[in-house]
């Protein structure tokens, strides 16, 4: 009779193997919470990162983060949840596509404008000149004299 159940018991044990391979749920540490909180900002103190803030509301928010992480939420879903509840003010760069573009595209435009301006200034006022390749290694005596003469001239000019 017992023999008939042996395959069934083995099958159950086999099925339980993956479960045994899983770790016990890892406790959430302060470092886990800080990693998420470092990407968020205090809702009361303007521009103070959440992980560095110890106002009552920030302590509560960090507890919320710990609870959500313990419940299996990922870093991104935790942050998205806070943004949905409290707005884009709680993150360092807005999540809203329009505001995100406003924040990040404008600097690129500014940088391009600066680059174009720099090139324009130099080229607009440029006059080609003959370039003389006169430098030879500094160990050469003539080069030393030439270099020193140029240095002295530079220094005399202040």
């Amino acid at each position, binding site marked *: 009779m017992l023999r008939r159940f042996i395959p069934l018991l083995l099958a159950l044990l086999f099925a339980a193997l993956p479960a045994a391979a899983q770790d016990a749920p890892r406790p959430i540490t302060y470092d886990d919470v800080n990693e998420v909180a470092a990407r968020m900002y205090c809702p009361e103190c303007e521009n103070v990162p959440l992980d560095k803030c110890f106002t009552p509301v920030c302590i509560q928010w960090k507890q919320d983060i710990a609870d959500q992480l313990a419940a299996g939420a990922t870093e991104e879903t935790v942050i998205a949840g806070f943004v949905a509840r409290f*707005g884009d003010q709680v993150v360092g760069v807005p999540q809203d596509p329009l505001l995100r573009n406003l924040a990040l595209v404008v600097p690129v435009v500014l940088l391009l404008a600066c680059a174009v301006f720099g090139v324009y200034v130099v080229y607009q006022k440029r006059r080609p000149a003959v370039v003389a390749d006169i430098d030879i290694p500094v160990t050469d005596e003539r080069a030393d004299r030439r270099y020193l003469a140029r240095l002295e001239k530079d220094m005399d000019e202040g």
Partner: protein
Amino acid sequence: MLAELGLSSLLLALAASVIAVGAAVYAARTDNQRWLVSARNAAVITFPLLTVSTFALLAALMTEQYQMAYVWSVTDLDTPTLYRFTALWGSQAGSLLFWTWLMSLFVFGAILINWGRYPRLMPGVIAYTMATVAFFIGLSVFLENPFERWWLDPITGAITAAALVPAGMVVPPPQILAEQSQGLNPLLRHFGMIIHPPMLYLGFVGFVIPFAFAMAAMTSRDLSTGWIIATRRWSLVAWLFLSLGLILGGRWAYDVLGWGGYWGWDPVENAAFLPWLLGTAFIHSVMIQEKRGMLKVWNLVLIIGTFSMVLFATFATRSGLIESVHSFARSEIGLPMFLFWAAITGVSAYMILVRRREGLLKDDHPFTNILSRETLFVLNNVVFVALTLVIFWGSFGAPIISEMTTGTEVTIGVEYYNIVTPPLFILMYFLMGVAPLSAYGVTSLRRLGLNILYPAVITAFTLALLAVTGTTDPAALVGYGVTFLAGYVALWEVWRAAQARQRSKGESLPVAVLALFSRNRRRYGGYVVHLGVTVIGIGVIGSTLFQAQTERQLRVGESLVLQDYTLRYDGITLATAEDNREMTIADVTVLRGGQEIARLRPRIDDFNGMAMSIAGQHSTIENDVYVLLNDFREDTQAVRLWLYINPLVNLIWWGGLILIVGTLLGSWTADTTPQRQPAKPVKSARVGEGVAS
């Protein structure tokens, strides 16, 4: 008595500054020397008057005159003498007076030193500097008066603050005022606060001098290099103080704010950084105008931009536009300050456009070569301006536009700056390395390549060494690469010139180096500054990219481990300080490789409910072991400790020191005063009458 003395001298200073502006404008329009002398005298007397006013407030702070509302708000019976002194700039009204007094000191010095040398520029210099001083005195008199006193209505019992005694009111009982006094903001009770604000203020106000000279040059149409030579040292001094203010501010944040860092991209920090960026571009760019007569418009734009950013930073900090640990409470001075900033910037920009259209700002030479020093300086300037624009956008532009257009408040935080600024800083360091190797006028690629060869090879060796010893992060290697290159170029330039002198003149190496520094302190002082900026850069890269941290709760005797450091919690000490703050002090031992290396005492200071976490630090050139006490539970005696390992962070402070030495060397130049500038023909007075030389 002190309040009356301070207020009356403040009013007299306002009158003197207004008279100075009026007389200077009239003198400029009529070429009347007598009016110019009157303007000078009125301008010069403003500083002693403001000195009386400032010292009256200081004396009131020291002697505990709690009837004065300012003294009442920033000190109390427990405030130590040292912090009574720093309370002078501890809140809006006092710091505004102090700011104005420092500006008048600069103006006083600039007028007396340059009076005989640049007579044609003087009317403009006096008008623009004193208009600025008058505006700030006006703010102190009408909106943020530090000499207001408390008055009691004996019938209703209401208390009100007023500069002059309101009808029917009497002086409140001094004992009650003393007992209810507020005391200094705990964040400001730190040794760094003795130095940081004055340095920053000196840096800010110092730029009024080059700005005023630039405006005077445009007003008088005397757009030779005179205004640049006149302001060379003033610009360097202002830049030095601003640099010091920023570095000391970083140190204060590191020690007092308790977050393990020194720069948080806070809008107010950024506001102070913006004039530094443009000012740095300016002190480089003026060299091109001096030597080659180029970049005339650009230099005007830079100095006006720098001063405009100074005014904007002051407005942003003091108006409540942004909130941060630095900013003062929202106040009534916001609108007038904004209007003043807009007016100064608008008028200055208009003047540039007009003078440019008149053809007065044409360059003496064109750019002749893409690799010439002047071209590379322009490119470096463009990088500084780009940094200014993107930081301004993140700090003010995006948040304000978002709120105005969509009604959504946004935070632009570290993530933004970590995306947009690193490429620009890399380019800045790269050009800082390459530009000094290039010659004015013409440089070939081959020549530049030969010049950079040795520093580049040493940089490559350094990077290989770093990679072998475990630094494999590509971002770190790129950062270290350009930073080391800039530093090696500075050293190489000194070495190469000294070697050439040794061979040609037979001097020993120390004599050759000394000779170089004494012949051209500006150039070699500049290399020392570059070296300082290199050391700062290495510190910033190390402490930013390789910071390690962990937070744990520990009971007595328990330890936590981070990298090869062990932190053991030994116990707690509760104490009361002299100024009545309650201190909770954790006793911790730091071990490395099983050996005790330090005992630290991170603590929480409680100022009547306002808590501050003061770090325990063990500093070496390699790193800082930085420990914060975040929480203490009386029932279990357990603490929550936050341990940071901040690699190379101390290089930032050492680099700052090198930068100071270099700037002092660079600004201590031989006298470069040009020939005395001839004065304009005088219509209604004898030439030189009353003019000091």
